[in-house]
Every structure is written in structure tokens, then in C-alpha cells.
């Protein structure tokens, strides 16, 4: 739990324009109410089951296991969620909250387009108006998802400032929120932003970790030895990590995007290559210049192409509970190929970062151990990008 001011250790907070504070207060209050509200939780979990298709399986990856010849590898199949990624777990939770709060207009930012599609989807499901901010660069590299959002009735607003990617889309969404705070609910897509977002998003995504624990117990009789997830803003990672944080025997690994290399200026490995700072409402690790300007992130994967990271990850990084590492664009593409050819599962480019890290992790494991990778999304949206590399 973050403290009352929204801090995980030194990280978090609410560094936002005055105008948003009442909205954050309202949100915090509403979320606290529903957290333990049976009706809400029943509706939320009902939708996860009947609409999203949860629980998602924990699939044994036999040929991948054979490939490394060490610990057994399992995949937590968030790629099977409706719309193709874990993002919808959170979008559903937030849209239910928005309805409860009487908001009629939904805005969201998106990078890979998965959160945008998830938000557009839940808005269509509930008949709410929906505007998605998306960097112009991301619009061109995730065309499939843009088409999907349009078809779902959302307006996709191209953001042309900066690198025209996720970070700029968040700026623009915040500007919209500042301007329409009365009737508008901002559904943030990752465990970032001002309190209570990082906490709330974690709570909505923790269903991943809880299911993984249950399934591990069912299928292996105990909790996993190693759990991997890719880290963009950090929602899929914190979702699978959080319920296992107290189980010290479970080793946790968050894999960031090293782009063209953490030694180059073109990467998005915030915890590996960044320093604490304030962006988008919270204090956390950031890619920034000597002067404290926000650096442009780079990753082949639009969903990881973000110079910040959720504050709870900054805390877990400093505390050492989670090991953060990074893999390059090239290694990620190799990861796509590996999982596709060994298991018949084409992962999202984001997810592929976690897969790619196996080549580092697996040699250190024992055959008696088992590993769970959060397969956060499917690769359909990335086929165009991937095809260019293959």
C-alpha cells in the first residue's frame, strides 16, 4: 500500500495542476469505496470472466523448456484476454468506476494501442463516449489498433508534439483532463501517473498474479521460483508481481526496453539508465537530460517506448526486491521468433522483451525449478513491424 500521500517509499505523489486535485481526491475516495464493495467486485470479476475470458491459462511451454534444458517454463496467457493484452483488466475496472462516479466522457492515452483498444472496447460495451490520444508516430506503427479503435467508435486524436509517442500522448490527455475535469474520467493505461492511479492500476491488474499463484499451486504444487514480466509503465509487471512480493522465495524480474542499447541515447530502460524525477504526476525514475528535460525514449515496441516508469517499480528497484534488466530491440525480435517457433504463440513486442531475457536467466536456473513469464499480449498488432525485421 502506498502511504496516504500516495508514496511507495520515496516514489509517487500527486504532482499535478491544482485543478486536478479535487478530481484525484474524488477518484481516491471512489476507489477506496469500491475496493471492498461486494457489488462492485462482483460486477468487475463477472466482466473479467464472462467478457474478457478470465481466468487466462498458465500454459506449460514444453518446447521452450526443452530449448533451454533447465527450469520448466510456463506462460501466463494474458494474450488470450479479449482485445489481446492485459490492459483490459484495468480498463474494465476504471470504466466501472467512471460509471459509478457519473462521468460520461472517457479519455485515455495509448502507446501500442492496446490500452486504447481496451478503453474503446469497454466504452463501446457501456455506450460511453471515448477519446484516445496517441502519438502520431505510434499511429503509424500500430495501424491495426488504430483501425480497431475507430471501428469501436472511439475518436483517435493524433499527438504531434515531441517524439510523437506515448509520453506526449499522456501530456495531451492530461491537458484534456484539465480542460474537462467535470465530466471526464481519465483512464490511465499503466501503473503510472498521480496517486491513486499507480495503486489503483496495480489493484486492477493484480488478478494476474493471484491467478498465477493459484494455478502454480494447482499445476506445480508450489509458487514459481522465477517470475518475469516486461516493464513499460509497469502495469503487467506489478500485476503479476504484487501478490507474490511477500513470498521472498519467488524471484522477480522486470525487463525494460534497451532499444538500440542502454549505452546509446536510443533506449527506454528507465530503471537501468534513468534517475529519479517528476513526470506525469509522480516522482519516479525517469530518462532525462543533465538539465532535467525529459529525454526521448526509444523502443521498437510502442508499449515500452516511455521515459518513465511506475513509482512502485522505482521503490522495488531501490529495495532490491525485484531485479530489473533490459534487452535490446534486436533481442526482442529474436524473442518473438523464439516463442512463435517453439510454442506457436506470437507474443506482443512488449512481451517479447521478457521472453528474450530467458537466455540470460535460464542458464542460472535448476531443472527442479519453474519459471513463469507474463505473456502480456499477443503480437497481431506488431506483425507489420516484425515483418520488417524478418
Amino acid at each position, binding site marked *: 500500500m502506498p502511504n496516504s*500521500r500516495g508514496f511507495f517509499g520515496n516514489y509517487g*505523489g*500527486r*504532482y*499535478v*495542476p*491544482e*485543478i486536478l*486535485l*479535487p*478530481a484525484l481526491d474524488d477518484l481516491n475516495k471512489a476507489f477506496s469505496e469500491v475496493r471492498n464493495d461486494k457489488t462492485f467486485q462482483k460486477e468487475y470479476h463477472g466482466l473479467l470472466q464472462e467478457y474478457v475470458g478470465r481466468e487466462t491459462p498458465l500454459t506449460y511451454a514444453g518446447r521452450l523448456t526443452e530449448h533451454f534444458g533447465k527450469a520448466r517454463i510456463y506462460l501466463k496467457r494474458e494474450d488470450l484476454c479479449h482485445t489481446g493484452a492485459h490492459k483490459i483488466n484495468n480498463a474494465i475496472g476504471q470504466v466501472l468506476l467512471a460509471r459509478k462516479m457519473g462521468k460520461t466522457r472517457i479519455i485515455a492515452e495509448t502507446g501500442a494501442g492496446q490500452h486504447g483498444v481496451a478503453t474503446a472496447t469497454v466504452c463501446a460495451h457501456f455506450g460511453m463516449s471515448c477519446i484516445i490520444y496517441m502519438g502520431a508516430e505510434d499511429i503509424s506503427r500500430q495501424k491495426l489498433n488504430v483501425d480497431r479503435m475507430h471501428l469501436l467508435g472511439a475518436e483517435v486524436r493524433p499527438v504531434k*508534439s*515531441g517524439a510523437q509517442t506515448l*509520453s*506526449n500522448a*499522456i*501530456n495531451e490527455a*492530461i*491537458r484534456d483532463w*484539465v*480542460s*474537462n*475535469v*467535470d465530466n471526464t474520467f481519465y483512464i490511465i493505461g499503466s501503473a503510472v501517473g498521480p496517486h491513486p492511479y499507480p495503486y489503483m492500476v496495480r489493484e486492477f491488474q493484480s488478478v494476474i498474479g493471484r491467478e498465477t499463484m493459484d494455478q502454480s499451486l494447482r499445476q506445480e504444487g508450489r509458487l514459481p521460483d522465477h517470475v518475469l514480466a516486461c516493464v513499460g509503465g509497469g502495469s503487467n509487471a506489478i500485476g503479476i508481481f504484487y501478490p507474490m512480493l511477500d513470498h521472498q522465495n519467488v524471484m522477480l524480474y522486470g525487463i525494460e526496453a534497451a532499444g538500440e542499447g542502454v549505452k546509446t541515447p536510443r533506449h527506454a530502460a528507465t530503471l537501468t539508465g534513468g*534517475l529519479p*524525477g*517528476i*513526470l*506525469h*504526476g509522480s516522482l519516479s525514475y*525517469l530518462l*532525462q537530460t*543533465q*538539465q*532535467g*528535460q*525529459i529525454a526521448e525514449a526509444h523502443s521498437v515496441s510502442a508499449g515500452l517506448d516511455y521515459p518513465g516508469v511506475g513509482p512502485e517499480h522505482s521503490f522495488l528497484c531501490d529495495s532490491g526486491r525485484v531485479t530489473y534488466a533490459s534487452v535490446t530491440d534486436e533481442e526482442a525480435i529474436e524473442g518473438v521468433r523464439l516463442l512463435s517457433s517453439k510454442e506457436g504463440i506470437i507474443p506482443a513486442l512488449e512481451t517479447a522483451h521478457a521472453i528474450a531475457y530467458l537466455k540470460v536467466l535460464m542458464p542460472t536456473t535448476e531443472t527442479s525449478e519453474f519459471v513463469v513469464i507474463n505473456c502480456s499480449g499477443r503480437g497481431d498488432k506488431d506483425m507489420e513491424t516484425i515483418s520488417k525485421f524478418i
Partner: protein
Amino acid sequence: MKKLGRLKKLFENRGSEQKIMSLFITAGYPDPGSTVELIRELESSGADIIELGMPFSDPLADGPTIQHASKIALEKGVHLDIIFDMVSEIRDQSDIPIVLMGYINPVLKYGLEAFFLKASRAGVDGIILPDVPPGEFPEVESLCMKHDIAPIFLVAPNTPEERMRMIDKSSRGFVYCVSVTGVTGARDGSEVSQSVGKFIDKVRNNVKNNPILIGFGIRTHQDAMAISRGVDGFIVGSALIDYIRSVSDQEDWIKKTGDFVRKLKYGTS
């Protein structure tokens, strides 16, 4: 108390009919070499306070105008030390209150202590950090006090009255009253003034320790007069930068900007 003094004196000395005019420009826009000269022109044309924007890569509370100005300033290499130099240079010749305005991250990266020390030494009178509302970053507030720099906070149309009183308590120099929900430069003044009366009454009932300046969306003298009825003055930012943008390729753009500012303040230039 020297610096708090400059803002304090300004408001104490204003005539009851006179409205204080605070002008926002981005340091280094349209180019760093002309900022000091521009500020002198603003002062001589009627500006009572200068809000000097510290450019930031991700100005999430700003509209397109100030985003653009920030971007140009950054491209031209503006950073905090340059801004301190600008302030020092002005301070050599003028006692106009100068308030720095910008986002917290560059300040943090500079080092909080170092920033406030240097700002104070350069002659900065106040600071506005739109992404640091009162209570969210206590260290910033105490450093303000320590270095005699006025922490200026904002009240917005949706700010609860209790919080308005808290903001009043936390603020020095003046309270920045945001007339509309929105980013800077968002709406034009005529639209704004309709709904603003009630809001101002509420602010005045709660903000008792500080003067009140009102801003966001003021583009003309008429806007300014209409909107600042009942408060101490007004703030113009985007409209000024838009004007500068429109004339900055002309040789006498600074003089022209002076004319624009006089018209803003007095209705005629």
C-alpha cells in the same frame, strides 16, 4: 525581506482603481539574446510583474502557444543558469518583481537547494510551479521561505473553499486565480468572463492574506478589465506570446510588443 518586499510594495502601493498587470513570457523566446531587452520594454510599457517561464520539454499544463515557446527556447539552449543570468541582468537596472514559472523536474535536477540559492541571489521574487500544488512537496515550500522567494500557488474554479484558505495560507506574494478549467491560452476572454463572477466572489471570501491576480484566457484590455473586477490584477501569457510570435520576424518587434502591452494595460497604446 528584500525580495518579498518588491511584490509586497507593489500591491501596497497600487491605487484602488489600478489593476496590477503581470505578464508571462518564456525565457529565451523568441531568442535568448532579446529576453532582457524585451522585459525592459514590457516594464516600460506598463508591466507590473514579470513571470519568466522556465522552458520544459513536457509542459502538460500549457496550451499550444506556450508549448511552442518552450520548445523554441529549449532548442536555443536555454537552461536555468542562463535564466538566472537574465534575472541578474534585469535586477541590475530594475526593481520590477520577477516570478519564475515552470515545472518541477528541471528544478529538482538542478538541485533544490542550489536552485533556490541561485534564484534568490539573482533577484527572483517568487516562483510558480504548476505541477507542485501546496502540500504535495513540503521541501519546496520551506526552501521558498528560507530563501525569501514567494511561493505562489493557484486556485482553480473547482478548488474547494477550505482548500482555498489553505492555499492562501501557503502562498506569499499573491494567489494566482485560474479563471477556467483548462490549459494556458485555452479559451478566449469573452467566453471566460461570463462564468467567472461567482468564482471570484468565492475566492475573495477565502483568500484574505494575499492579493489575487486572475489569469488564463485574457487576450485584450476589455477581457482584462471585465475579468479582474474585484481582484487585484490580471495575468496575460498566451496572448502576449502569440503577439510576439506574429511580429518577431520584424526588426522593431520589441517596440511593437511594447505598443501591444500598453494597449493591453490602458486600452490605447
